[in-house]
């Protein structure tokens, strides 16, 4: 057991990463923050629409997308992989809607059927390609991702300046696009998420915004999976908004808290993974979940205290929901 959980060495865990290995730690933390923030911002709207698990479905369907894109274009460059994965994500959403609309199968079962079937197809195609010896994707890598490899990428050089690893730059662009999209179309997103009926009566095209959000979801998940893997991208979609929702009811505040949570869990996660010498992506999720547990505890405590010390607003108005 003692060799499983390494002793907590203050210097090794906290100081050394920022002093001796600064560039490596910096890029990993930054990447973790960008991924978590981008996913979390989109996740806020998914949670409002009760579609959190559509993200799960899309993230799984990336694998067949990658494999098919490779089979068609015969290369494995980033853009080919990206296009394939994005197309697979959109296809997943369409299949889910088809099954749900055309039969009496409930939407949750439809989600499960769609992504597992596509994932199985992806694994079969992959193992066929591999046994033909033409191609290799580490399927484990699709599942877990490897954020620790990010600093090893050759940096992007732009007019003489070294900007940083390409995946970090890409993720930063995605985060900016997501933030910009939310800022510009905030009103539409809010209205269509909370009250589709009202949105329709105001003349908004709810279907358009629905598919727009799905497109954004596919975009962030596809760009996130490289570093954190398919399944942990789901965590990044769901956990930050849940954390924010425990602490505030205002959507703008929640969006801000999501970004804060992303930064905190990136730092915490990296140190956790250094301490335990484990997968950085896994540690990132554990840290994010840990922060949620703290937020949940405080909100529970606050609620109980609030209930105990709440003063009735008027003497003759019964307090609804007070324990009898």
């Amino acid at each position: 057991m003692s060799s499983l959980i390494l002793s907590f060495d203050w210097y090794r865990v906290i100081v050394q990463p920022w002093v001796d290995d600064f560039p490596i730690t910096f890029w990993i933390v930054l990447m973790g923050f960008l991924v978590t923030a981008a996913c979390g911002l989109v996740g806020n709207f998914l949670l409002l629409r009760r579609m959190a698990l559509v993200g799960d479905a899309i993230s799984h369907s990336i694998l067949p997308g990658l494999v098919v894109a490779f089979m068609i274009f015969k290369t494995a460059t980033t853009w080919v992989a990206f296009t394939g994965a994005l197309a697979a994500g959109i296809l997943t959403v369409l299949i889910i809607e088809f099954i749900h609309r055309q039969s009496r199968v409930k939407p949750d079962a439809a989600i499960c059927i769609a992504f597992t079937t596509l994932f199985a197809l992806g694994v079969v195609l992959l193992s066929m390609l591999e046994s033909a010896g033409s191609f290799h994707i580490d399927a484990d890598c699709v599942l877990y991702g490897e954020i620790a490899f990010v600093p090893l990428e050759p940096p992007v050089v732009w007019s003489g300046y070294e900007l940083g690893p390409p995946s970090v730059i890409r993720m930063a662009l995605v985060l900016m696009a997501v933030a910009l999209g939310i800022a510009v179309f905030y009103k539409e997103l809010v209205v269509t998420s909370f009250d589709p009926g009202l949105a329709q009566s105001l003349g908004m095209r709810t279907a358009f915004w629905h598919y727009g959000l799905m497109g954004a979801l596919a975009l962030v998940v596809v760009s996130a999976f490289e570093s954190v893997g398919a399944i942990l991208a789901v965590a990044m979609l769901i956990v930050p908004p849940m954390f924010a929702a425990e602490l505030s009811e205002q959507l703008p505040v929640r969006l801000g808290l999501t970004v804060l949570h992303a930064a905190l869990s990136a730092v915490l996660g990296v140190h956790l993974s250094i301490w335990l010498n484990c997968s950085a992506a896994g540690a990132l999720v554990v840290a994010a979940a840990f922060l949620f547990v703290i937020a949940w505890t405080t909100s529970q405590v606050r609620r109980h205290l609030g209930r105990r010390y709440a003063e009735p607003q008027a003497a003759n108005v019964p307090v609804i929901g007070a324990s009898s």
Partner: protein
Amino acid sequence: MRKLTGLALSLVCFALAVPEAAEAARINELSDSTLIGRAARFFSFSDPSLRNALAGSMLLGVCCGLMGSFLVVRKLSLLGDALSHAVLPGVALGFLWNMSKDPLAIFAGATLAGLLGAGTVQLLRATTRHKEDAALGFVLASFFGVGICLFTMIQNLPGGNKSGLDKFMFGQAAALGRSDVILLGVVTTLALVAIVVFYKEYTITSFDAGFARSIGMPVQAFHYSLMLLLAFAIVSSLQAVGVVLVSAMLVVPAAAAFLLTDRLGRMLIYSAIFGMISGGAGAFFSFVGRNLPTGPFMVLAAATVFAVSLFFGPRYGIFSRWWRQRSRSARISRENTLKAIYHVLEDQGFTSEQVSTHEMAERRRETLEEAQHQLGVLRRHEYVTMSDDGESVALTPAGWHRACEIVRNHRLWELYLTNAAHIPADHVHEDAEKIEHVLGEETVHMLEKRLNYANRDPHGRLIPGVEDMRLTVARQRGPTREAWFGKMPGRP
């Protein structure tokens, strides 16, 4: 009786679970050169490790199919997905227990983790405003994250590298040992016995929890016993299909069965059979094509079954529904043509049996070709006979009967709407146009009785009665018909 058959089935499962042990790393270790050779070897069942893999896969299919049916009808499909990911830390802890892949330790650890996951989902739903999907996603992702951390930590341990724990991610039925198959057999038997003994209780708590609570049933206890069985099913299936695809084996066969029947009992049986077939097919394909993983083939087989029942299921299939709709609209169009013929005959005072194509086209405001086409359709259904020059048609007895029925339905309904619902007479036509095609004999008799066997509709036209349908057009002419109506028994 059903309990007896259920118990017999469980015994069969138990017998399946005890094939000879063997220590082959892959099913197809002895390599035949051709596909056919390998297929032949598959069906000879001579290979003990193949027998293990096949028995394991089929048991897994039955077990997951049964438990999955409850997930699907309870709208908890994604709980299977969440739990299958949530057992991962339990698998790692079970491995750490004595640093080996001891099936029992892993089973215990994973079951605990699964139950903890199910409990967390309930807790989150009870204490936060988050909906089911968020709670499930949280459990899925955070437990999986912990599991991945533990896995990578184990890999750093001395001896942890060759632990073979990655088999749990994608699964390999060939890696099933005898003890795994026995475990699967025990779990399947347990599930079967539980479902057979508590069939009524599980049905009621699944479909109407409120009612079950009101008659004093321990709903929570049944829910958690189902969760326990589900965790058992997931954990024992992990080795063969892997974490990601267990949820498919739970949901896909059950969803296929859900599309075929409305009865839970039948759904359970279908789902178990589909699961078994998928399991067998998965084992077969992964044996025939070398080195191919088993789980994905099982899932693809199950997905094929689902696709077939989605499109061709007799009751809810997309194709079947489309076909039914098509034949219904063809029937409605035929009946509308018959009605038009009746109207033409009626306008002529039933003086002639022949209706010319011209009159039809005029009546329905269509081109001559359209009218000819429609009359041709009627002739093919033997509702009309066509004259030699093709210019006019006459109703056959069957056609006359059906035309009378439609007109009667229409006029009765108009009368009913004006008399009973007090809708103005000029507003009832549209409604009657639709209902005339679907009124059955029973309803018509009831309507006639309620309307006191009236013989004129709100617009003053005669409603054809049963006796009219027996007569041919020739005997309906003019005053004889009126006179005859007056004599009809039961009519005022």
